[in-house]
């Protein structure tokens, strides 16, 4: 059985913020911009402090309804995606405990649960071009970073 890993954000290359159920992530090394919502943002907020797969699963069950039984596999798959993008780093749990161990799952009973959806991530590879977009006139109604058709041309 593979040893349990502790996952954390790959700082200082990666900067991020979770606001209103959306995690906005920037990889400064590659100039890529990412956005994830719902369960993806829930998972990311735990990664910001450092966490493990069991902690993530427990947190998802606390915050979402209809969480499938195979959620462990989904979470591992998701973390593999984030690692392949160099957004997170997985370390052996013993090393993490020596440096700064996981903080565990906070007791947040009483918060309204939302239906679980598989985590997804949107990636934009050229942040320099994205930042040149006028966030009022060059974007769709859903707002930056989604460029309008005219601006995309």
């Amino acid at each position, binding site marked *: 059985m593979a040893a349990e890993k502790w996952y954390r954000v790959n700082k200082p290359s990666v*900067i991020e913020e979770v606001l209103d159920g959306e995690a906005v992530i920037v990889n400064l090394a590659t100039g890529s911009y990412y956005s994830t919502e719902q369960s993806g943002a829930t998972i990311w907020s735990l990664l910001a402090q450092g966490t493990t797969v069991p902690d993530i699963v427990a947190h998802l069950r606390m915050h979402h309804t209809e969480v499938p039984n195979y959620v462990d596999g989904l979470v591992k798959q998701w973390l593999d995606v984030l690692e392949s993008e160099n957004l997170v780093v997985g370390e052996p749990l013993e090393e993490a405990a020596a440096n700064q161990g996981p903080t565990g799952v906070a007791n947040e009973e009483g918060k309204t649960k939302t239906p679980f959806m598989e985590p997804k991530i949107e990636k934009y590879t050229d*942040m320099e071009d994205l*930042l040149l977009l006028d966030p009022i*006139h060059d974007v769709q109604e859903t707002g930056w970073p989604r460029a309008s058709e005219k601006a995309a041309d």
Partner: protein
Amino acid sequence: MITCPDLSHEHEVLLRATLGQGQVVIDAWNEWQQRFDLATIDAKGYVLLPQLYLRLRQLDVPEATLAKLRGIYRHTWCKNQVFMTRMASVLSLLQERGIGCLLLGGAAVMATSRFGCLPLEKCELLVPGARFADATAVFRQEGWSKRSDWEEEGARLAHSINFTHSDGTTCAIYRSVFAESTPSWADEDCWRHAIASTVQDVPVSVLSPTDHVLKLLVDVGMGCRPFTPRWVADVGTLLTAAEGSMSWERLRVKCATLRLTLPVKRSLAMLQMVSVVGCPRELRDLAARMATTWAERRGDERRLRDPAQRRGATGALAAHWCRYKRVVGEAGRIPGFVKYLQEMWEVPSVWLLPVAAIGKWRQQLVGMRKGGHSNGG
């Protein structure tokens, strides 16, 4: 020249929505939506939008109605993060050489308030006066270019020097917090009360809210900076974030000792005119109690006049006296003032001072006849 507040009605509504509390914010936001449009907002109003978004979400205004505002917030956040990455590399450079930095400007406002999300345009750093030349040398060695040739000649006395990187990032290095000459204790006091923070994990000191509010009031009151929605937002954000921890007595003492009372009173009066920032009672009381000297008033009157109208030796001497007293404090006397004038005008002997004064007066007259400007020394 100091201009009166020139905020449009749209700016005032946006400021109320950004800096207000509770229902004031909702009412202002509703008013803005009914009367104005994002597509026609100007640059001065635009800078308030990211912070406005945070304020509206704090009050649970439905997310669905704020889609574009959310995008503007994200856009600003991203740009600021890229900016702060460049700022972090500058801070590291200076720290490697043992030069401490005190963060000023927009980055300092953001560091002291969760809701201070305004676009960052320029990195502003205070370094110890004795290390100013070292700091500017570091920038030159790293390929940053100066913004103007004048700064080379004025570097000996320059309050600040601006640098630009090839990637467009601008950075201003300050040798003192206030543009007017101040004694070393004024800056030492700022360092002593600075707040420890980090910029992307690089440790840095940040100007305390008390000193920052004082600097903002002085900058506008002296005409070093225009009165804009951005300025009002910075003052309002600092006052809100520091509520309960502002050191009003320290602000009062600094104001009085540094003879900055008149510019501060002027800025407060302008803030009251737009009435979007709840001016704390303590600040209003301070302004009412602070007294001024004859020389301060004469010097201030002279500063407010158009440069072409600044005639007369009395006003010029009063301005110099204020500057001198600001630096040396209560210990300042006439013999010291004479020596000060000698240094300012680079005159080798005190007997040549009247000659230097006449020369400056003639320069001023020539300048006025040609239609140019002269400060008259």
